Structures are given as structure tokens and as C-alpha cells.
């Protein structure tokens, strides 16, 4: 054992000594044999020759001796590497072209995989993240997107055995006043007391909330602590000013923790009777170790019967437990997978190109290989040499590709839409490196196998014998070559069809009608601060000595009315209106809320829950922004406080809840107390009417994104539903709406000095609403273009090679009277054949795989005829164009010159 080991070590370390000794030993043997022959009377020179001849191939023997010493692996890898390096450095242009292709392909797919890894694969940054789940309910549409009502939660805390913690949270816009008195708007989450225990993150400072702690304290996010309080190490216990009062800081969350997203700080939710049945909260659970999701789900199902039917829907709640990761990633999965597949296809195309390069180079090297075989090099050895060569190429491509990917990810992150979750950092971790290694190896084998196989084929011996002009050796690589190019065209077709569908879909989105007049529009978001406009009146104390608090949002309504009037009076303003949400501004989503239709039988468990988004607008919103009144009337200034409740609904609402019926004249009622004068809800707005009559139906407006269908909406006049947060939308007379911003800003300051306002231009909102689609489309278009270019190079390479191979045949044809035109068309026909075969495969694949893009498309069939016609035509044109140059070369062959050279 030890001897073996030592011998191996000696063989590896003392390679050159080993080689010279082996050489000396064999020379000695031959000399001794020659001596014997001389002793038998053979003349010395003759003896030398015979000894040599009878010994056989010295190189072969050496090879076998080397092989018999178990160092073969390390040893032969070194030998192969040296051989490959010499071979590649002899043809640098070839090597550089191949490495460039592979760098491109590997770089793209590594970048693609890094994104897949960052978004879909890597664990969430919480301890035992696999035990974290999101709790949802089944929504009326059957999807597990429904939310949680606070009344569910206490039972969930207390009556389950599968959970280690449960927390609820909701988002609102918050505000923190810094030391210097400046107010900073930021996201605030109201959470229940176990929130920080559920996530189990180590706090940067202080603590999370405690069980049954009174709801006054605040936990800051790390960035809030750092940016607003200058990383004050003594922040704990200090009282800071937040949106509705002074609160003590009890903790600072660790860096990077802003769950559920963009949290500036967290406060404890106050349990309020008014909210108990509001199904509007996100809930998160931590499962006990070893508990499977299904078990938790079945326990919650049992609990649901104890809880009784939901107050809004009158149905039992069906709880759904999802891995938190799925919830965080959301609907992004198909997009990410699509992009990654595109990069993988690109890599495959690059591989085929390099394989083709190797093949055509290999044909030029058949003689070298045949010579090596004749000298005794085994087939395995030659195969190994050639495979090492391609592995060396792919390794170079892999290393450079990794660098390209790192750079590419940087660019990618800059152009990627900001709302893609988990993309803040795209780490190059072990998973990515392992993928890079595997991908590089696989690439090397992929590009090298066919060429190495066909070159190490024993048929070559015949080739040497007939002087290097035999047709037999050429056939095999040629056929492989053609098949590879067909596959390459097929892949390119697939990718370009995908890109084409996305481009068409994007175009459909851009020209889609958002349902309102959007030209020359600027909007101002205003969240009226509590200290700017007071809505509370504190009256004399009651019998128990507590002050009587009454409130009204009339001052807020008054504030917005005045603002509207002032802005409307500015010169250059064509129309002005107020609305609680600006169309296509996804940051201002209005949640769904429940309503009932008066006079209809009370809904039972079989009736779907009735929900709609509530919007608050000024009465002139419809006429000013081109929303058509389809039935009844629009809202009127007379629909004010004190007047009977009146609402307008959109078409989708009418279709869903009053199919085949005129909704005008029906009365709606609202089961939740949201926006009624209660302790908590009153902070954000007030609905002054409990029942409203539907007075009209208006056309649909797309509020969320252009791609998503409109949701049922109920429009209240902003007198009857008044919100603190509102938008003033302005259409200007002049072409550049931004020019009016300073004037509008002056009017806002004139009404109240300290009200912050955020301006956005509609074309920016519009553009922002399409970032995801634009992003996906641009990337796929780039990949498609690259695929086209690579395919063109592939066809060009094959045709050039084929023309070179057939030069003498073509010369004979020309000598026999074929015109240049006939030769040209001969070659072009071959190009067209390959192109058509590839197109057929690509179109077939696109038809089979069409579901992969379906979720990304807007109002376009996955079999869109325009795309399925144009892309093949383009590819055919590319194939012909790429064949044209070699065809021209063929047509110019001079038979006299050519045949003389033979």
C-alpha cells in the first residue's frame, strides 16, 4: 500500500525523471537486443533497424507503462491539458471565437441562474425559515389570496398545538419626526405582539414587542434608526414623534429586516371592536419543529368550525397555509423561470456554435489525428485529448462568463423594476458556483462530444491510407454538423417567437385603453397630516370625568374642496378633480371591502361574498377625465354631507352583482364599521352614510395595471366618504404638465403651509406600471437578437465549410457547363433546406411550450398568427443571407484553377 502510494507520489512529482528513466530503459532494451543480433552475425546497422522494428511502437509502450501506474488520472489529465493548450494556442482565432461564444452563453445563463437563485431558491433570511408560513383564506374566487380578520387570531394563538407563534400585520403610511423637526413619510406596520417572536430575528438593539404589552411602544427599522436618528446608541426608551403622537422606542430591528416589505417602523395593533370582522390583514405563523403544513392546515380547518361563519360572507372561513417563500415571491415565478429558460436556450445555441467550430476544425485535423493513431495513440487517448480541449474552452468560457454574469447582474439590477421581491441583492453563493461548475462541465462535454467522437473514429485509418482525400471521413462530421445547425435554428426560432409574443403583448398594453383621459395629466398625492387639519373636537368631560371626543372629517373635505378650487382657477389648468386613487398607480391600491344589497335575501354559505373597492372622488371626476356615464347619472355636488347616500358603480360591478339587471335604484349597505367614527379607523377617513343608493353606472377604469382586468368598484362622492389621503389630478392646457407643478405647489402652500405633496406625471405613472412587462420583453428581445446572430454565424460556418468541402465537385459542375447562377442556387437551396428544417422544429417546439409564456401575455394568443408567420420568415431570410456569402464564393470557383490544383 505504502509502496504504491510512494510510487504514485514519485510518479506525479518526478514526472520528468520518470519519463527519462523510461526512455533510458527502453533504449537499453533495444540496444541489448541489437547487440545480441550482432552476436548472431547480423551487420550492426541492420541489427539496429531490426531491433527497433521488432520492438514495435515505443510511444505506445510508453503510454501503456504510464497507464499501468495508477497515476493515470492526474497524469493523463496533465498530459491532456498540455496537449489541449498546445493545440489551442496554435489556432488563437479559433480559440478566441469559441471562448467568446461560450462566455456569452455561460455568462447569460449564470446571470439568469443567479436571479433564479436569489428570487426562488435561497432561503429567507430568518432562522428556520422553512417553519415560517403565511396564513391566508380562500377568497370568493377560489384562490388562496383571502385575508385574515382579527377575530380569527386569538383562537389561532390559543387553541392550536402545531404553532410556535402567530402574528398579524397591516400596512399604513406612517410618519416619523426627526430630531431637527423634519417629518419623514415611511411605511408603518401595525403588528400583533408575537410578530418578532414569529420571525425570531436577533434585534439590533433592545427587544421586540412583549406579550400583552400596552400598544404604545415603537420598534424602528435599522435604516430608520441609522438615517433619521444617526444610529443613536441610546435610542432605547427615548420618546419620538410618530404620525399620531409620542411613542417610546423599545427596539431596533436587525439590518435588512423590513418585513413584510419597506417597513420604517412597527407599532402594536390596537384591538378594536370595529375591526374584529374586517378581513383585511396578513397573518404569519411559525410552525413547531417537525410539523408539516398539512397538519397545521387540518388543525386550522377544525378551528374554523368553532369560529363560526364570517360576518361578511356568512360562510365558514377556509384557512390556507403557504410557505412564506411562495408568498414573498408571489406571481414572479413564471417570469423568472421564463427568463432563465431563455438564457439556457442561449447557452445551448452558443454550445452548438462552438461544437460546429470544433467539428469544422476537426475535419481539418483529420490527418493529424490519423497520424497520431498510426503512431500508436489509442482511440481513447485521442478522444480524451479532444474532449480536454473542449473542456479547456468551456472552463475559460466559464471563468469569463462568471465575470460577465457579475457585470450583467449589476446592469440587470439597475434596469430591473424596483418592486421585484428579493432582488435587492443577487448573491454569488455556493449554489451559484456549483451551478457554474456543473454548467461549465456540461458545456465542455456538450460541445466536445460529437467532434471528439467523430475524430477518434477508427474509420480514419482508411483515410490515411488513401492519402487524405477520401470522402468517407468527411461524411460523418458533415451530417452531425447539419443536424446541429438545424437544432440551432430551431432553438433560435423558439426564442425569437417568445420574444415576438412579448413584444406584441407589450404593444397591446401600450395602446390599451386605460378607461380615462390621461393626456397632459399631473397628479399630486396628499396625505393630510394630523397636526395640519384636526378632525377631533374634545368636549366637556362626561359623568366619569373623561373628555368627550367627537369628530368629523368635514374639515378635510373642506380642505380638498378649497385646494381644488384654487388649482382650478390657475391659468393653464384644463380640468381638476380629486380622487382617492390615481389610475395605474399600483402603489395606491384600494383594498376590497364588503357590501350587501338591501332587499336581497341574506346571503348564505352558498353565495359568493360581495366585495368591491371603495373609491372617493369629486363629483366632476367622471366628466373631467372621460369616464362615461352608462346608466343613471354621475355624482353631483348635491351628494354632500347630510344628503342621502349616493354612489356610482362601474360596469364590472354591474355585470358581476346585477347580471341582466339595472343596478340603478338599488341600495347598498356596509357591514363593517371601517371609516365610521371609531377610535382607530377614524384616523384615516370617514364614511358619513350607512346606506347608499346606486344612482349610476360608469365605464371601467384600469386602476391596478393595464394588464389586470378591472375590479368591481363603488365610487362615493368625497363629501360622503372623506379620506385623509387623496390625490388631486390636473389636466393642463399646455403640452408640458410639469411646467405647472410650481404653481400648484404654491396653491398647496397657500392653503396650508406644512402639508407635504408628492407630484407625479401621468406618463411616468404609465411607464412605471409597465416596468415588469417592459423588463421581461427587453431581456427576451436581447436574447432573441443574440440567438439570431449566433444562428446566422452557425449557418454561415456550415455553408462555408460545405463549399470548401465540395470545391472540386463544384469545379467539375462548372467545367461541365453549370452557370454561376446555378451554383449559387445550389448552395442557397441547401441553406434554405437547413433553415426550413430548423424552422419546422422551432415552430413545433413553440407550439408545445406555448403555455410557458401564457401568463406573461396580454390580449394576444400564444399562437399569434403574426408572430408565427413573421419569425419563420425572418429566420429563413437570415438563413439565406448567411448562405449567400459562401454561395457567392462557390459561384466564383474557377474550374481551371481548381482542377489543376488537384
Amino acid at each position, binding site marked *: 500500500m505504502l509502496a*504504491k502510494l510512494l510510487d504514485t507520489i514519485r510518479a506525479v512529482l518526478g514526472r520528468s525523471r520518470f519519463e527519462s528513466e523510461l526512455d533510458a*530503459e527502453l533504449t*537499453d*532494451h533495444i540496444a*541489448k*537486443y541489437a547487440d545480441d543480433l550482432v552476436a548472431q552475425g547480423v551487420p550492426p546497422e541492420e541489427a539496429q533497424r531490426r531491433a527497433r522494428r521488432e520492438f*514495435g*511502437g515505443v510511444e505506445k509502450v510508453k503510454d501503456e507503462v504510464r497507464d499501468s501506474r495508477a497515476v493515470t488520472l492526474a497524469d493523463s489529465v496533465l498530459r491532456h491539458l498540455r496537449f489541449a493548450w498546445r493545440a489551442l494556442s496554435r489556432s488563437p482565432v479559433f480559440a478566441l471565437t469559441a471562448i467568446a461564444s461560450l462566455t456569452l452563453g455561460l455568462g447569460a445563463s449564470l446571470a439568469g441562474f443567479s436571479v433564479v437563485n436569489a428570487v426562488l431558491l435561497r432561503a429567507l433570511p430568518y432562522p428556520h425559515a422553512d417553519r415560517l408560513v403565511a396564513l391566508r383564506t380562500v377568497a370568493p374566487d377560489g384562490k388562496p389570496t383571502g385575508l385574515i380578520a382579527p377575530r380569527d387570531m386569538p383562537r389561532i394563538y390559543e387553541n392550536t398545538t402545531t404553532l410556535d407563534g402567530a402574528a398579524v400585520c397591516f400596512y399604513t403610511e406612517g410618519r416619523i419626526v426627526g430630531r431637527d423637526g423634519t417629518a419623514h413619510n415611511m411605511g408603518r406596520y401595525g403588528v400583533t405582539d408575537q410578530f418578532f417572536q414569529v420571525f425570531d430575528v436577533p434585534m439590533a438593539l433592545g427587544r421586540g414587542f412583549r406579550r400583552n404589552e400596552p400598544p404604545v411602544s415603537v420598534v424602528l427599522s435599522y435604516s430608520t434608526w441609522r438615517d433619521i436618528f444617526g444610529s443613536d446608541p441610546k435610542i432605547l426608551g427615548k420618546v419620538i414623534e410618530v404620525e399620531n403622537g409620542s411613542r417610546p422606542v423599545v427596539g431596533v430591528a436587525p439590518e435588512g429586516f423590513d418585513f413584510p416589505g419597506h417597513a420604517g417602523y412597527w407599532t402594536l395593533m390596537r384591538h378594536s371592536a370595529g375591526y374584529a370582522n374586517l378581513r383585511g390583514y396578513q397573518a404569519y405563523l411559525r410552525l413547531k419543529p417537525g410539523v408539516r403544513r398539512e397538519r397545521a392546515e387540518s388543525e386550522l380547518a377544525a378551528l374554523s368550525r368553532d369560529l363560526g361563519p364570517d360576518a361578511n360572507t356568512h360562510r365558514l372561513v377556509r384557512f390556507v397555509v403557504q410557505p412564506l417563500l411562495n408568498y414573498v415571491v408571489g406571481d414572479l415565478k413564471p417570469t423568472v423561470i421564463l427568463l432563465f429558460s431563455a438564457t439556457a436556450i442561449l447557452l445551448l445555441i452558443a454550445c452548438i456554435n462552438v461544437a460546429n467550430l470544433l467539428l469544422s476544425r476537426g475535419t481539418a485535423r483529420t490527418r493529424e489525428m490519423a497520424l497520431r493513431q498510426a503512431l500508436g495513440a489509442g482511440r481513447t487517448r485521442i478522444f480524451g485529448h479532444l474532449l480536454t480541449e473542449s473542456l479547456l474552452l468551456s472552463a475559460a468560457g466559464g471563468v469569463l462568463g462568471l465575470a460577465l454574469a457579475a457585470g450583467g447582474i449589476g446592469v440587470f439590477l439597475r434596469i430591473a423594476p424596483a418592486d421585484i421581491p428579493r432582488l435587492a441583492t443577487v448573491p454569488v453563493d455556493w449554489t451559484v458556483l456549483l451551478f457554474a461548475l456543473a454548467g461549465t462541465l456540461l458545456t465542455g462535454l456538450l460541445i466536445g462530444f460529437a467532434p471528439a467522437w467523430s475524430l477518434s473514429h477508427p474509420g480514419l485509418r482508411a483515410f490515411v491510407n488513401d492519402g487524405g482525400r477520401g470522402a468517407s471521413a468527411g461524411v460523418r462530421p458533415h451530417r452531425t454538423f447539419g443536424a446541429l445547425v438545424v437544432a440551432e435554428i430551431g432553438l433560435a426560432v423558439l426564442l425569437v417567437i417568445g420574444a415576438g409574443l412579448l413584444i406584441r403583448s407589450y404593444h397591446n398594453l401600450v395602446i390599451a385603453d386605460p378607461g380615462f383621459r390621461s393626456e397632459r395629466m399631473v397628479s399630486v398625492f396628499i396625505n393630510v397630516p394630523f397636526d395640519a387639519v384636526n378632525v377631533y373636537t374634545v368636549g366637556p368631560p362626561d359623568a366619569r370625568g373623561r373628555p368627550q371626543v367627537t369628530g368629523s372629517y368635514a374639515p378635510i373635505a373642506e380642505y380638498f374642496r378649497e385646494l381644488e378650487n384654487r388649482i382650478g382657477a390657475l391659468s393653464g389648468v384644463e380640468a381638476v378633480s380629486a380622487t382617492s386613487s390615481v389610475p395605474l398607480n399600483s402603489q395606491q391600491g384600494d383594498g376590497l371591502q364588503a357590501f350587501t344589497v338591501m332587499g336581497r335575501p341574506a346571503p348564505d354559505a352558498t353565495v359568493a361574498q360581495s366585495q368591491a373597492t371603495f373609491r372617493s372622488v369629486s363629483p366632476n371626476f367622471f366628466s373631467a377625465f372621460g369616464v362615461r356615464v352608462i346608466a343613471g347619472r354621475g355624482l353631483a355636488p348635491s351628494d354632500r354631507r347630510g344628503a342621502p347616500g349616493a354612489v356610482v358603480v362601474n360596469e364590472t360591478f354591474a355585470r358581476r352583482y346585477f347580471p341582466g339587471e339595472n343596478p340603478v335604484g338599488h341600495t347598498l349597505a356596509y357591514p363593517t364599521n371601517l371609516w365610521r367614527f371609531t377610535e382607530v379607523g377614524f384616523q384615516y377617513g370617514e364614511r358619513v352614510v350607512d346606506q347608499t343608493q346606486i344612482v349610476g353606472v360608469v365605464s371601467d377604469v384600469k386602476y391596478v395595471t393595464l394588464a389586470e382586468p378591472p375590479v368591481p368598484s363603488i365610487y362615493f362622492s368625497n363629501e360622503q366618504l372623506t379620506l385623509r389621503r387623496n390625490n388631486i389630478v390636473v389636466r393642463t392646457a399646455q403640452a408640458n404638465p410639469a411646467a405647472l407643478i410650481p404653481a400648484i405647489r404654491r396653491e398647496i402652500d397657500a392653503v396650508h403651509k406644512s402639508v407635504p405633496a408628492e407630484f407625479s406625471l401621468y406618463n411616468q405613472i404609465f411607464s412605471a406600471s409597465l416596468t415588469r412587462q417592459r423588463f421581461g420583453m427587453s431581456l427576451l428581445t436581447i436574447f432573441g437578437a443574440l440567438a439570431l446572430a449566433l444562428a446566422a454565424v452557425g449557418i454561415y460556418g456550415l455553408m462555408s465549410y460545405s463549399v470548401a468541402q465540395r470545391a472540386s465537385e463544384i469545379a467539375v459542375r462548372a467545367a461541365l457547363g453549370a452557370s454561376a447562377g446555378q451554383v449559387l442556387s445550389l448552395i442557397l437551396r441547401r441553406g434554405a433546406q437547413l433553415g426550413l428544417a430548423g424552422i419546422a422544429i422551432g415552430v413545433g417546439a413553440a407550439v408545445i411550450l406555448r403555455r410557458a409564456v401564457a401568463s406573461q401575455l396580454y390580449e394576444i394568443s400564444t399562437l399569434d398568427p403574426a408572430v408565427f408567420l413573421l419569425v419563420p420568415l425572418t429566420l429563413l431570410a437570415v438563413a439565406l443571407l448567411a448562405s449567400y456569402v459562401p454561395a457567392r464564393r462557390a459561384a466564383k470557383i474557377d474550374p481551371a484553377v481548381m482542377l489543376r490544383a488537384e
Partner: protein
Amino acid sequence: MAKPAVEILQGTLDMLILKAVSLGPLHGYAVMKRIQQISGGALQVPQGSLYPALARLQHGGFLKSRWGDSENNRKSKFYELTAAGRKRLQKETTDWRQLTEAIGEVLGTSTLETGLANTKS
């Protein structure tokens, strides 16, 4: 040289080499000649497979080698048996005898008419 050369059976070359060097250190050429001589020229060692076999045996720890002077003042590489080599030779010899006896029984001939023993006569 009158005897027709017999091809060495697959796997027996190692045994023959071990036997050849068991009498004293030999260089490669001498190993070849020794086998030929012992067999009366009946066994022809293919020159090409001799050195791989030597290397294999050395790597396996059955042979050790050193460089030394040989006839005509040449530097030659001499091989000799190690303890492991001697053991293996013994074992292979026993195995071979058993094998040839068994085969002889099957073929209905005496041991003497088969295998190595026969070629010697």
C-alpha cells in the same frame, strides 16, 4: 528456435516475470530472454507488453528496481522480487497447478500433457 511459439495466456505474464526474477535481479531484456530460455523458446514475450507488466508489478509493490551496470558497460534497470512478490509467486504457482489439474481432469488428460509443464519437455 525449432519450437513453434506459443502465445502467452492472458494474465500469466505477471507470473512468468515473477518466476524469472525470483532467481536474482534481472533487467527487462534479461527477463524476456530468461522466459524464452526456460521455455525452450516456446514462450515468446511480446516486447511491447513486457514493460507495462514490469511497471504494473512494481507499482503493485511486487517488484523493486534499481539502476546498475550491465554487460557492455550499459546502465540498466534491474528488477528483483519483494517479499510481497515472493508471496504472490507462491500463491500463483499453487493456483496455476490446481487450475491446470482441474482442467486436465475435465479434458481427460494427465497434468503433464497440459499447461506449462508440457511446453517444458
